């Protein structure tokens, strides 16, 4: 057990925690916006896996990580567009379509991966890191927090951008109203369907970006079913955060630590089967739900399609 508290171990643990937290953070922030606007976006897992696939394809063929992030976000948005069309515009059941999309895209990306990459399993080179001067020299914390890829800092900045949008802008108010009292928003002369569509598309872009990060920076490779429930964890984060972006960040970091413990413990040579460690993040969710579940508040019109004039 001497290895457990060594500098190397803690450094690897923290670095891994941040890396694992970023996809969850992006998915959670995205889902939060959808939920605020009244759309329970179960399809987020599908958006993530498609973003992961397209993000990897973009980065692999262009050689540019940034282009990969772009294609990943666009991939997520394509799925979100489908979701918005079916569930927001046509008002089909959000859970049914969400599960349908997730299943279909898991299958589709596995299929495409099989024909493209299953012989060679190509990897991307390790992502270059942006080193923040001075801060990066702090022992243990420095390498873990301040030597990450630039997109990590952007994702964390996004938390505060989201907070600003929700509190200080008209769009934030509109989103809130679309989830709590869509009819009131409609009476105020603002298109509910349009507001919700904006929210769902943003979710898609963020989830796709999260997927692309997971594949390109986190793993450096795309394999079928790589997201393994990260999108669903995002839904939990959004639920527990009660509409506050900062809480999504805290939650994501907490789960990041759990996920990172898996690899860090193996590095430290502690002999626990991976299956046991894989249970940790989900166990953490259940414990949090048992403790704080009652306080998870959801918008009033969540999951209910808006139809003008319907009672």
């Amino acid at each position, binding site marked *: 057990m001497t290895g457990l508290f060594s500098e190397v171990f803690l450094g690897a643990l923290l670095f891994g925690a941040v890396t694992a937290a970023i996809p969850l953070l992006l998915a959670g922030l995205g889902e939060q916006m959808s939920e605020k606007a009244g759309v329970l976006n179960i399809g987020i897992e599908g958006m993530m896996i498609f973003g992961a696939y397209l993000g990897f394809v973009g980065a692999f063929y262009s050689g540019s990580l940034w282009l990969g992030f772009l294609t990943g976000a666009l991939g997520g948005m394509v799925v979100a567009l489908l979701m918005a069309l079916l569930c927001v515009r046509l008002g089909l059941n959000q859970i*049914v379509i969400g599960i349908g999309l997730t*299943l*279909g*895209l898991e*299958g*589709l990306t596995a299929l495409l991966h099989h024909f493209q990459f299953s012989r060679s399993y190509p990897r991307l080179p390790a992502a270059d890191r942006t080193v923040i001067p001075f801060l990066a020299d702090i022992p243990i914390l420095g390498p873990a927090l301040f030597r990450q890829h630039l997109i990590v800092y952007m994702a964390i900045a996004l938390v505060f951008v989201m907070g600003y949008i929700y509190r200080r802008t008209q769009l934030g108010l509109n989103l809130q109203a679309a989830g709590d009292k869509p009819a009131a928003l409609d009476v105020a002369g603002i298109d509910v369907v349009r507001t919700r569509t904006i929210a769902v598309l943003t979710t898609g872009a963020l989830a796709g970006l999260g997927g692309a990060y997971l594949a390109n920076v986190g793993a450096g490779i795309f394999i079928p079913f790589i997201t393994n429930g990260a999108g669903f964890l995002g839904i939990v984060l959004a639920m527990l955060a009660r509409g506050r972006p900062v809480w999504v960040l805290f939650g994501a970091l907490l789960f990041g630590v759990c996920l990172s413990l898996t690899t860090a413990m193996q590095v430290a040579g502690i002999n626990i089967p991976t299956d046991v460690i894989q249970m940790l993040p989900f166990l953490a969710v*259940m414990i949090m*739900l048992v403790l704080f579940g009652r306080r998870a508040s959801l918008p009033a019109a969540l999951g209910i399609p808006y139809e003008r004039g319907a009672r």
Partner: protein
Amino acid sequence: MSATALDTSNGTPARRDIQRRIIMTLGPILAALIIAGCILLAVGVNPLTYYGFVLERGLLSPLGVQQTLTRMAPLLFLAAGLIVAFRAGMWNLGGDGQFLLGAVTAAASGPLLVQVLPAWLALFCAFLLATAIAMLWSLVPALLRAYQGVNEIITTLMMTFLGTSLANVLVKLVFLDPSTTVPQTRTLPVEDRLPRLFDTTITSGLLLGLAAILIVHFVMTRTAFGLKLQIVGANPRAAVHAGLGVPKLTIAVFAISAGLAGLAGAVDIIGVQGNVRADWNPAYAMAVIPVVFLARMNGIAAIGFVFMLSVLSIGGESAARRLGVPHHFTLVLVSIVLIMLALAEYIDHRYNQSRKA
């Protein structure tokens, strides 16, 4: 349905209703086959050859059709469990975890019990244990939903991830068969498994599955208990005002739904597989969820759709080997069918509304 019953103006309404229903079911399936065919074309596989192989193996060859019917047994149990939950308005998305824990329980207890008990009693006890463990597994989401109002979609999903890992831990560490190097549980001898039907390879689990889904259909549509659950599903607040004990009913729904999923796992192990290998997760429940929706939560219709899914999955596995298309394609096909049928239902609904107006 009720709209056409009043509409006697032209022709026989009942016949037109049936015609419309057939078009509204077959049309979207055809459309889905065409879209999925385009995906196959894009990856360089002839869709007609693929569908040909699927039909040949899943439906037309004697061996294939027996496999298809055998595959139906666990799927029917899962569908029955989901019908209870969905009709009561509870989204039990944790079927896979419940299924695997049921399977592991059956695989762990079956081979030991047959050594001390008569075979029929041993199997019965294994079924009971599998059901009980799966029910226990659903207790946390059930209690959270019943008394804390926590959304069950999230909790059941989390429990399914947990359950999948736990099943693996149990197989690899606790119930490991010491006599083989492959990580798997002890194997139930073939002669002790559920008998096969007549001279075929079809498991008699099929009959159990059919019985389960028919009983569920009857209970949900023809009994007071079923009606209570439907009221909870339609409007939980109204159900409270009607004097129903909603929290207790909620727990009952989760127990029944999870118990049936556990039975599905047990019937697959005791009837067909004989043991659970490490990392085995067929993810049947996720594929059955869309099927139950397509059947509009109707037990009888679900039998037909489960048969279709079975043909697709057995045929798809064979076509995968022969054409090199991974069997994940079945997921794509099911998902497109689901979306197309949902769209058709929407169009049908709109058409009816505009005709009424």
